[in-house]
């Protein structure tokens, strides 16, 4: 039926004595919008870091579209087609909004060193394309009016949109969103829901979202994986997850259940 885009196969990661990721396995099919949830410290961001090669896997493997990307360096993973946003935002604050996106966009419009140093050859046309594509993306997320603003001066919500725009300009086939709704109020979360579902359908992406805001995850993710202490404790659709005793225990604690 669908092709498997991402497959984690018995992945383990240790930080010294801490078993941060325990025997993690799950699969994402093409075009899925999935959620990765779990209490703080469960290892969710570590999973993202393992997929993108920021950390090395201790055992197990990670496959992307059938290719084993476990030994890949970060930039190789990105060039393969995976993009990611950050919990704490990692924009280039002193560059303009447009430059931030152009820096990502240029991956697909490469010209060589000689052309860069002399502004001859393909420089003019490719630079034009990069600029154009970047503005289009900014329009897609509603930030085109702020193109020449320094990214660091934007309000928080706009910065989050910029990060997403930047990730999109890499033309990924798998998008990893790390707590995109962090610090947002319920109205903003609703807007974000809309944005995520829009880019999911517009760009035909496979998306994996780490989130704490249950209104986001339960509403837009038909496939949810739940982690605690580095291990998977449940996987399924929102109904299954909401009624799962292990998950209630993880989030609310045993005493509440027994009460």
């Amino acid at each position, binding site marked *: 039926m669908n092709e498997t885009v991402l497959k984690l196969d018995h992945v383990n990661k240790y930080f010294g004595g801490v078993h941060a990721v325990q025997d993690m396995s799950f699969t994402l099919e093409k075009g899925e919008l999935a959620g990765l949830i779990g209490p703080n410290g469960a290892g969710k961001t570590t999973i993202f870091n393992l997929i*993108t090669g*920021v950390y090395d896997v201790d055992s197990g493997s990670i496959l992307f579209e059938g290719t084993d990307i476990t030994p890949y*360096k*970060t*930039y190789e993973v*990105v*060039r393969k087609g995976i*993009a*990611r946003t*950050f919990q704490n935002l*990692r*924009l*280039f*604050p*002193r*560059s303009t909004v447009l*430059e931030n996106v*152009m*820096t*990502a966009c*240029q*991956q697909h*419009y*490469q*010209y060589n*060193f000689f052309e*860069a*140093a*002399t*502004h001859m050859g393909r*420089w003019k046309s490719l*630079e034009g394309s*990069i600029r154009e594509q970047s503005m289009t993306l900014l329009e897609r997320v*509603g930030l085109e009016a*702020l193109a020449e*603003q*320094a990214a660091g*001066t*934007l*309000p928080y*919500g*706009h910065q989050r*949109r910029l990060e997403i725009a*930047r990730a999109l300009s*890499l033309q990924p086939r798998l998008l990893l969103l790390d707590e995109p709704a962090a610090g947002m109020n319920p*109205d*903003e979360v609703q*807007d974000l829901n809309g944005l995520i579902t829009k880019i999911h359908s517009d760009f035909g992406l496979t998306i994996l979202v780490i989130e704490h805001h249950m209104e986001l995850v339960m509403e837009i993710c038909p496939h949810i994986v739940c982690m605690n202490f580095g291990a998977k404790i449940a996987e399924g659709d929102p109904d299954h997850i909401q009624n799962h005793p292990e998950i209630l225990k993880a989030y609310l604690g045993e005493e509440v259940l027994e009460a």
Partner: protein
Amino acid sequence: MSGYVEGIIILLFINGIAAMGVSLLTGFTGVFTLGHAGYMAIGAYTAAIMTVRFGIHWLPAIVAGGIIAMVLAYLIGVPTLRLMGDYYAIASIGLGESIRLVLENWQSFTRGARGYPGIDNYTTLTVAGAFFVVMALLMFYLIKSNFGRAFKACRDDYIAASLLGFNTARYRVLSLSISAFYCGVAGALMAGFLTFIQPVMFDLNKSTELTAVVVFGGLGSLSGSLIGTAVITLVTELFRPISQYRMLIYGAVMVIIMVARPEGIMGQHELGPRFIRSLFQKKNGPSKALEGGDGL
């Protein structure tokens, strides 16, 4: 034009080329270096030995000076650029000093600490000017390109940069190699200007001067580095009669700038019509972003 003034201008061109090299590495790629005088030394000695001992024409000698400095930087850079921040700064001091020590001790080839005399005065105003214009143009173009953005990404956040598909290690090495080329050429031109070179001319003080100039002008501004060079070179000349105070003033300037205005003269901006226009407009950047938001 008097010989004295002409000499100052040539010196401005030479120091400017070196400053652009260091600016690329420190200002745009974020690698703080205190050893680039070593690459100037390599360029100077290469050109000196090639022209004096082997009778080669100065043009290929100067280019060779740049290339040999670049190759050495590449070989050293690949392993050492894995280091970040302070570690690389300390390593660069060690490297710069090692180059100077080797030049001082390899007496048979370099004539040691006494210096290398008898170099032909090939660095005329035209030669220096031509090299400067060409190399400045190439550098300005490079900064305003995908490479420039890549270097800045490595500087601002190397993890984010790698997550945008940049092989940050490769860009750092590339930046170092180019900067070494520029310093090598500057050194070679210096040899042809002074007609006499000594290893001590390219010591830690010179390296510090190169970095100070870039910091003073603004990390992330090429025109700033050139303005900084002009100021420092001219001040050095003006203070020649009281040159013992020169270094003292240098050091004080570095401290004062860091305390009062760390972004330097130009900050991150380049000197151009836009910048000059902005000087006459009221600053209303941040407030503009906050008003008219969508509540997001």
